[in-house]
């Protein structure tokens, strides 16, 4: 491909420098088709406290959606300087199209594993976005329509490993996301985790999935793509106006 007129860069066909200019490999050449389900920007926030495994959960989920399903995914993170106990969150943007802006703007799904996280991030949910909380740790849900499961208790009592809380929650997310497959999550777990903790985590994942299926009703319904566009445009304008 030499005919790109806007490309004024040095043309050494094979050099790294020329490639950096010519071959824009946005988000790594995924086919973006996922599971056959086309996605406009779908935004997920996983939030809680440092030490709960939020970032690991984000990596596992993102890896499953990007590599297992072939979506474009960006996963960003935000955490405090503390080793444990500070606020921690992982944000994912999932799309069938290459993603320019990597951060989230308005959330389709918010997972909150602490009271603080639920309270601070609830306002970023889209009007019909879903909120999934830890039933024990979030005492006061910011919304009466929250989906709640006691992830930490399940991990401690049913899996016997309290550190698996994040993976139990991942199982529930795998059930709730209509475009996600549990097998992709399993594969992502097996690829990323050390062998000696793999079995416990697979157990935790399946538990989360089954509990969600039993107690949370139907998976989340995706918004009509057309409707979503209108909504997003309206929100952008509102933000601009309020800033003025």
């Amino acid at each position, binding site marked *: 491909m030499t005919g790109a007129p806007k490309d004024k860069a*040095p043309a050494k066909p094979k050099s790294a*420098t020329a490639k950096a200019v010519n071959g824009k490999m946005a988000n*790594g050449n995924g086919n973006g088709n996922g599971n056959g389900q086309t996605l406009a920007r779908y935004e997920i926030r996983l939030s809680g406290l440092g030490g709960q495994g939020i970032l690991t959960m984000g990596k596992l989920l993102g890896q499953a959606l990007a590599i297992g399903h072939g979506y474009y995914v960006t996963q960003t993170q935000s955490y405090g300087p503390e080793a444990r106990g500070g606020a921690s969150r992982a944000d994912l943007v999932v799309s069938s199209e290459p993603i320019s802006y990597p*951060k989230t703007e308005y959330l389709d799904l918010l997972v909150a594993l602490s009271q603080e996280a639920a309270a601070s991030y609830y306002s970023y949910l889209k009007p019909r976005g879903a909120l999934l909380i830890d039933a024990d740790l979030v005492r006061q849900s910011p919304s009466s329509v929250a989906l709640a499961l006691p992830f930490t208790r399940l991990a401690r009592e049913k899996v016997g490993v309290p550190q698996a809380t994040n993976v139990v929650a991942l199982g529930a997310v795998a059930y709730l996301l209509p475009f996600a497959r549990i097998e992709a999550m399993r594969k992502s777990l097996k690829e990323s985790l050390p062998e000696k903790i793999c079995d416990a985590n697979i157990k935790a994942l399946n538990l989360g999935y089954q509990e969600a299926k039993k107690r949370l009703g139907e998976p989340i319904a995706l918004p009509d793509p057309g409707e979503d566009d209108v909504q997003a445009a309206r929100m952008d304008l509102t933000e601009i106006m309020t800033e003025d």
Partner: protein
Amino acid sequence: MTAPRKKRREAFLLGNEAVVEGALAAGCTFYAGYPITPSTEIMECMAKRLPHVPDGAFIQMEDEIASMGAVIGASLAGRKAMTATSGPGFSLMQEQIGYAAMTETPLVLVNVMRGGASTGLPTSPGQGDVQQARWGAHGDHPIIVLSATDVPECVEMTVAAFNFAEKYRSPVILLLDEITAHTREKIELPEPGDFEVFSRLTPTMPPEWYKPYEETMRGVPPMPPIGSGYRFHVTGLSHDPLGFPTSRPEEVRSLTERQFRKIDRFFEDIQIVEHVDTADAEVVVIAYGCVARSARLAVKQAREAGVRAGLLVLKTLYPFPRRHVEPMLRNCRLAVVPELNMGQLSREVKRVNEGYTTVRTINRIDGQIITPSQILKEIA
């Protein structure tokens, strides 16, 4: 390259991890460093990978000063060497960046920019080290500063950094920011042959004829590894063609002039930019790093709203790509420079602009990214 090929290995990597993939693809066999957020994953990943690379060596040093010393030493011994750090560590490395520039020692330094001065905001993004990367070491010295906007680019620009270091015998600084470094995206892992990889020129004459800092056509003298039979002296003092200290004006002048000329003559090779819809743009956004991603969305939205907007992504920050920026400033009615600092690259844009068009800056220093709507507001 176009023939059908087997499925490539994919991975869901952090920008920091992608830097390591790029470094290894470029032939890096030596890493010395001291961990610091948000660059730590580069070091962790190198510690895992380098022991499996033939002749690979990884050393954790006692601090950033020692890290740069080790990297310079390894490079003089013939290795492709790198280190990575963030703000405070970058400040500690400045003296030896100057030493590497003066002794024309190839090396790659990745600085993942965090927010604020001093310890600042260790886990938040910033772009406040741009001028420091250019001018942090004292004295006139040429330097190459690159940046990357996303995870695939972290691979490409790290390879470019090693290639430039080797081609031009210069320290090369790769400036990332916390967002680029800590964003995970899917990439295809590089395989041998994906990138053209350069290695420094070594002398071909008999050792007794070798003059380490002799004038050459390209201005870049050949560089033997220490211990290969070629004698050379390394000093940070101004030196003559044999490498020994001198204060004779003509020798000092020709040394410094050659050091600048070896970079200046190859601007076309070094200055990497990406044009997005700039051909007919009346409003141009000039951005780099994570902010360029916000700008990409803002420009797209502005186009949809009927504004002829364009985006120039700077991947080489220094030498400042004037030959790309200047023509654009002559043809647009507004240039917008968003960056996560109080206005560091916009100084260069304004300098090149020479008052021709309006240059507007968007500056954010609260540890948050500039959003697409913030940029859209300025261009729409």
